[in-house]
């Protein structure tokens, strides 16, 4: 092949292979719950929590025959607030939704984002997951009460590891715990890690006194005895684990890391109900129930306006904690 034609042909080859999957457009008649051309935005990177929720939900909705083709796309940045800004700017677009969760609430505050969740339309809360309090096998803490007693005495000497940066879920959980225990959140020695994986290494190696994170990556380590589970932060115990809830362990606080769906502002009544109905029927589908089981998510369905009120309360709670930390 002559070199002059090589580059164009290679480019053409690359284009034919790559562009069609990037430009998949949706089609389908407007029947029932189907929303032709619905796009589902993920405000963090592929493989992250919101991404897996969105892609699973989209796949389940298609398999259950609720919609024909949902396009999932990523617009990561600034803890989800870049995506949120885009969502808010798409006023009146009834064919766009965004996967999000508690992390976005904190990110709006830490990033001083111009658009907040109150500017968008709440569609539904979908899932929740409690955080867990874990120590390494060789730790001297056998129960949460022992840990709490030492933590109260000298919070600075007990570094807490979490899988998220300031304002994220794993940061909020220990801060809320501290407040309930009468420890000033400012004196909590919080060490942020890049996600639960990096934190896991540091907890296993005894670098931090205890770790607070989601159950996901830790299940196996707990079962094999490498980590000791001292408490779960949710309302109820996690099935299969003997650890108490924070309330049972004597700390009056409850925390779950939830995920939900938002839509752009300024939707018509019919557009809004159509989206809500789609999510409601998805939630009822056997495919979604199977996904919940597979991923270890708890169903936390909360529709439209009630979800909006819940968001406002969460926002208040996050804002209070961050304010006490001086941010």
């Amino acid at each position, binding site marked *: 092949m002559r*070199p*002059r034609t*090589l*580059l164009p042909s290679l480019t053409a080859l*690359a284009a034919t*292979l*790559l562009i069609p999957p990037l430009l998949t457009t949706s089609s389908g008649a407007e029947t029932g719950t189907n929303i032709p051309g619905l796009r589902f935005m993920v405000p963090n*990177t*592929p*493989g992250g929590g919101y*991404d*897996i929720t969105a*892609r*699973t939900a*989209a*796949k389940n909705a298609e398999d259950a025959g609720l919609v024909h083709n949902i396009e999932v*796309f*990523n*617009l*990561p*940045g*600034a*803890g989800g*607030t*870049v995506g949120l800004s885009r969502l808010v700017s798409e006023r009146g677009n009834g064919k766009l939704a965004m996967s999000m969760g508690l992390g976005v609430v904190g990110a709006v505050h*830490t*990033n*001083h*984002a*111009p658009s907040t969740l109150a500017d968008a339309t709440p569609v539904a809360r979908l899932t929740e997951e409690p955080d867990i309090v874990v120590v390494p096998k060789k730790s001297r803490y056998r129960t949460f009460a022992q840990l709490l007693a030492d933590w109260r005495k000298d919070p600075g*000497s007990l*570094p807490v590891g979490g899988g998220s*940066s*300031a*304002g994220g879920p794993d940061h909020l959980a220990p801060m809320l715990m501290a407040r309930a225990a009468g420890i000033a959140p400012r004196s909590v*020695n*919080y*060490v*942020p890690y*890049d*996600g639960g*994986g*990096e934190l*896991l*290494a*540091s907890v*296993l*190696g005894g670098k*931090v006194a205890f770790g607070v994170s989601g159950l*996901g*990556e830790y*299940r*196996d*380590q707990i*079962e*094999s005895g490498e980590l000791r589970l001292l408490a779960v932060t949710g309302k109820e115990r996690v099935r299969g684990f003997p650890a108490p809830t924070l309330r049972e362990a004597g700390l009056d606080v409850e925390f779950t890391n939830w995920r939900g769906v938002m839509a752009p502002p300024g939707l018509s009544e019919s557009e809004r109900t159509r989206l809500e109905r789609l999510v409601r029927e998805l939630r009822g589908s056997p495919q979604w129930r199977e996904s919940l089981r*597979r*991923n*270890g998510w708890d169903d936390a369905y909360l529709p439209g306006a009630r979800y909006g009120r819940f968001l406002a309360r969460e926002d208040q709670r996050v804002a209070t904690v961050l304010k006490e930390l001086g*941010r």
Partner: protein
Amino acid sequence: MGSFGSLLDGFGTALSPLNLMWAALGVLLGTAIGVLPGIGPAMAVALLLPVTYGLDPTAAFIMFAGIYYGGMFGGSTTSILLNTPGESAAVIAAIEGNPMAKSGRGSQALAAAAIGHFAGGMIGTVLLVLLAPTVAKLAVDIGAPDYFAIMVLAFVAVTSVLGASRVRGFASLLIGLTLGLVGLDQMTGQQRLTFGSLQLADGIDVVIVAVGLFAIGEALWVAAHLRRGSGTAVPVGRPWLGRAELRRTWKPWLRGPLIGFPFGAIPAGGAEIPTFLSYVTEKRLSRHRKEFGKGAIEGVAGPESAASASAAGTLVAMLTLGLPTTAVAAVMLAAFQQYGIQPGPLLFEREPDLVWGLIASLFIGMVMLLVLNLPLAPVWARLLRIPRPYLYAGILFFAAVGAYAVGGEPVDVVILLLIGLVGLMMRRYGLPVLPAIIGAILGPAAEQQLRRALQISDGSLTGLVNTPFSVTVYGVMALLLAWPLLRRLRR
């Protein structure tokens, strides 16, 4: 049953025609994805995840591993030929590879990179089979003070790549460190150099910095001189590695994994820092030190081998501990969970077929990649015979597409062009580009580990030297620094 027996069973699994097909598909896809800048293997695996839902997990993971290794192979191709790194681990390959390509030794550079990947991947995977449980236990003991000690060592090593003028070298390093500062401070959530822009809150991706400084800076520089220059196309040399080149490269190929593998296995290691350390080592050890910066083949062979071995190291932490140390590993872990498989210390016992099939398929994938890439090297190298105006226009196009693909943000293209202007200015005033890149990679990592170490020790400086590992590293460093002084004193 020993790991050797299990590995043989693994080959039994991986060599079934269907699994072979998935491995082949994976390496092909991975190579294509690696060649295109911006679309990394992590994104590719994540996008394919829902598609592979119907497959059995073993087949899916064999394909994912193919994509991962294939991406590593492909990433260096554009780096060498077009000075446009496809991903961050391939940044170092551009420094020696691109001058080689320009002087007509492009296919040798590509071959050195391909064999380097093969050697690194093979040795790394063998180490994975032999050492996985041991390494995993040690990896957990590495903490923030130890990482910081390694970073300090890396900074000391930087001085050897500062170039002839120390002032210019340090100026360049500071440009890199400043670029690395941009974004949200992870410890406190404070914004730094973001000018209130949300798009800058996550910092500037290293790939954008590297492509901007290398590719865009270079294209602008060439454009500024094109009228005066001769405008001749790049000569094309012999297609294969000669005996003299083989003599220079076999040691770097073997040394690379020694640096790359441990870095991949430790939780915050990654592939960038080992490639850089391998580059510095090869420069120190080479008998052709003067050629470095102008196209020394050791500078391609060593880092590429280290990058590939670090990919194998990543799998150690992922398979034995359920610890993701890179973005790809994180996505693969998520995939495990989607299949209802719990990654962690019990994985080898619970899913031996899957794990050993996966490891065996890595060996098979590597052979496939070598067979695919070696004959392609001379073909790719002929790209450079395109007349320079068209070639550089093409580079600008690919660089812009790549920058956009990283985050899907038009802002990234603007940042890319601005960094490209900085790159042009640096060339104009004789500032070396390499220290800037290293600053952008090392700076944020070193800062994070330093602050984490101090946070854990509640502000006490002893927190930096309270592990045997960190003390050893500082000791070795002091010896290295004092050695020239001591020798002078004796004389």
